[in-house]
């Protein structure tokens, strides 16, 4: 017996809702196991070879600094090595590109022959056996900044080439300093007390009616917790120490800035772009950002170095002069094709070495390759030649604290440290209470990274 099915609107809507429930939760990306590879470089080859370079923020045809410098780098290399063909692939900074790297390198074991990478990724790829060990001579090893080299060491082996060290420092709006009657720090050096006093005086209602704030940061570093000598880990990177008395007093100094209301009211949600925009619009007198912003200011005709902006060191307190810093790396992917691997290492050495800066400076028009001070002593000089502000930044490498590579840092940072810091800055917890509460989870994640 047959029965015609009549679907009422009620049933139809009900069915739609039921399907909605089924599709409500999708899966997250599925990883697959990967094998380890060996790590050694084949000798260099002069025969024609094509390699692929993956570079974050490379957008063909655009004028962003990464794109211009990357195209010029390939041109410079081709002039020295006409037999090489290098293709650049890009992607914006962010998780989408990170995932593209992960899928290619860890799952497909394909993709880039040479690529830019950052701290946590170096360890991740090294742990999966996907990085080819740089064939460095002793002289080359000595040429690299030791803390940068340490940051790329996995189980006693250097697994990538340190490219540059990126310090966070203070950009200062000289117009605002003048308007508030504050003297800029002499030679860019100031104590925390001087910095704090300046930030208070610089928090003013401007002559144009706009509210200006003495200081701002972009919520992507913990520099103030270093100011009295606090460090996230002990020397061996085995113990979490960001709840030490020095770290606590550093956070107290940060909290004092919040309590004095010298930061804009949205300081806890300011991201780098917003913070930069607020400085450019004249709302912020002192902004803590890394070196990439120098080019932004240089490109803006409203801003002239020495006239209405300058840079200063991170303030000094109980500890030695310091700065928060990160390191960029160039890595070579482990692969079977010995010619490609050797070519990739040669190119990686060029990208991190002393020749590329002068090569690009000779091009027409001249191109600034180094977006931050180089990780190699022999390559470091040229960065300071680009611009007087960069000459000041070039000196900061000596005291910049390079965050050691811990593969679980992003989880420690985002899931535990930032909320703890926020709670302290909002006055909901004392700095000691906030940092003590984080310690068990941070230590657990550090232990996990050290396994």
């Amino acid at each position, binding site marked *: 017996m047959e029965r015609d099915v009549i679907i009422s609107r009620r049933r139809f809507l009900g069915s739609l809702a039921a399907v909605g429930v089924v599709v*409500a939760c999708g*899966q997250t990306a599925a990883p697959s*196991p990967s094998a380890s590879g060996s790590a050694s470089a084949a000798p260099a080859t002069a025969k024609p070879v094509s390699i692929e370079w993956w570079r974050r923020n490379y957008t063909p045809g655009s004028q962003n600094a990464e794109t211009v410098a990357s195209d010029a780098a390939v041109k410079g290399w081709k002039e020295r090595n006409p037999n090489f063909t290098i293709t650049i692939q890009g992607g914006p900074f962010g998780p989408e590109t990170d995932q593209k790297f992960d899928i290619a390198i860890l799952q497909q074991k394909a993709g880039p022959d040479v690529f830019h990478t950052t701290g946590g990724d170096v360890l991740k790829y090294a742990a999966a056996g996907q990085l080819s060990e740089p064939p460095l001579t002793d002289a080359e090893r000595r040429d690299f900044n030791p803390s940068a080299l340490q940051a790329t060491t996995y189980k006693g082996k250097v697994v990538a080439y340190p490219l540059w060290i990126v310090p966070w420092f203070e950009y200062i709006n000289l117009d605002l300093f003048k308007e508030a009657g504050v003297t800029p720090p002499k030679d860019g050096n100031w104590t925390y007390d001087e910095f704090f006093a300046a930030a208070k005086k610089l928090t003013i209602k401007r002559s144009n009616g706009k509210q200006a704030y003495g200081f701002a940061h972009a919520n992507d570093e913990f520099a103030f917790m270093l100011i009295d000598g606090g460090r996230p880990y002990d020397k061996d990177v085995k113990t979490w120490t960001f709840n030490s008395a020095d770290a606590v007093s550093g956070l107290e100094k940060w909290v004092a800035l919040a309590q004095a209301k010298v930061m804009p009211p949205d300081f806890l949600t300011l991201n780098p772009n917003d913070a930069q925009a607020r400085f450019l619009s004249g709302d912020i007198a002192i902004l803590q950002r890394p070196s990439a912003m120098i080019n932004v200011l240089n490109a803006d005709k409203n801003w002239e170095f020495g006239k209405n902006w300058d840079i200063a060191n991170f303030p000094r307190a109980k500890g030695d002069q310091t700065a928060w810093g990160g390191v960029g790396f160039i890595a070579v992917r482990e692969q079977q094709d010995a010619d490609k691997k050797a070519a990739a290492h040669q190119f990686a050495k060029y990208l991190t070495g002393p020749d590329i800066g002068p090569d690009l400076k000779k091009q027409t028009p001249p191109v600034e390759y180094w977006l931050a001070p180089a990780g190699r002593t022999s390559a470091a000089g040229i960065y300071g030649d680009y611009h007087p502000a960069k000459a000041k930044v070039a000196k900061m490498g000596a005291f910049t604290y390079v965050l050691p590579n811990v593969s*679980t840092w992003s989880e420690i940072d985002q899931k535990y440290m930032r909320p703890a810091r926020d709670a302290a800055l909002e006055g909901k917890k004392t700095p000691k209470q906030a940092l003590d509460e984080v310690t068990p989870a941070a230590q657990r994640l550090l232990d996990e990274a050290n396994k």
Partner: protein
Amino acid sequence: MSAALRRHGWSYLFVLPTFSLFVVFTLLPVAQGLVLSLQDARVTGGSFIGLANFATLADDPVFRQALGNTVLYATVVVAAQVTLALVVASLIQPLGAKSRVFYRALFYLPLVNSAILVAIVWRWIFNPNPFGLANATLGVVGLGPFLWIGSSDQALLAVILSAVLTIPGGGVVLYSAAMGSLPRELYEAADLEGAGPFAKWRHITVPLLRPTTLYLVVVYTILAFQIFERVYIMTNGGGPNNATITIVQLIYSTAFQFGRYGLASAMAVVLFVMAMVVAIAQFRSLRTDVEY
């Protein structure tokens, strides 16, 4: 082979392409998510760990906070949006045909906007600085300034308000269409008995719209459980002191920033179960035998 299959068997061929896509892109990934939730899955691989991921979640204060925020957000926003859609559709209904079409389009059009752009606008509206629209407006009547997204006490409220204050165009259109097909005889009978407009709305319109209400409540609840882009854009992905962190935001961070795919999948499974339980409860409480 049954007579029904003999008669309608060929029609399955037409359903097959869509059904195949549904299986490949929806059912299989959901099943794979379930499998991953039982593994210590990373980008480099994973091993079976049973229910350990769920035990980790039970002990994780950040996940508990995300769960609480998600439930609070969904409860307030769904109630507000369904009510708002019903009220707005009811106000449109007595208008002329052209006006009804105009208002339906007016309320629906904002839906074609990018959710990211909308979130950016709300970020500006609830900016704690004087240039934030909410503070600027409230300042005129002597209120504020409020910290909104800059404070762990107010950030979730700001995110909820941003959703509540957005007229749910889809709901308005659905309710409006449903109201248009309600049987006129009931209203005529009510008129004869002297019922006023509110009485007719309360005792005829609202009960007859229960199937639509059920659909909207279920769909809006699922959408609210999946809240992500608003939190990500308005409060940088969790707000001060994780005040606005939600389950999907935490899934995103856990999978794509911390590389813990197994744990993230376990969160997705919890979300799936939540959505299913709530949907079943809603089906049971709102189902009706009303046919018209």
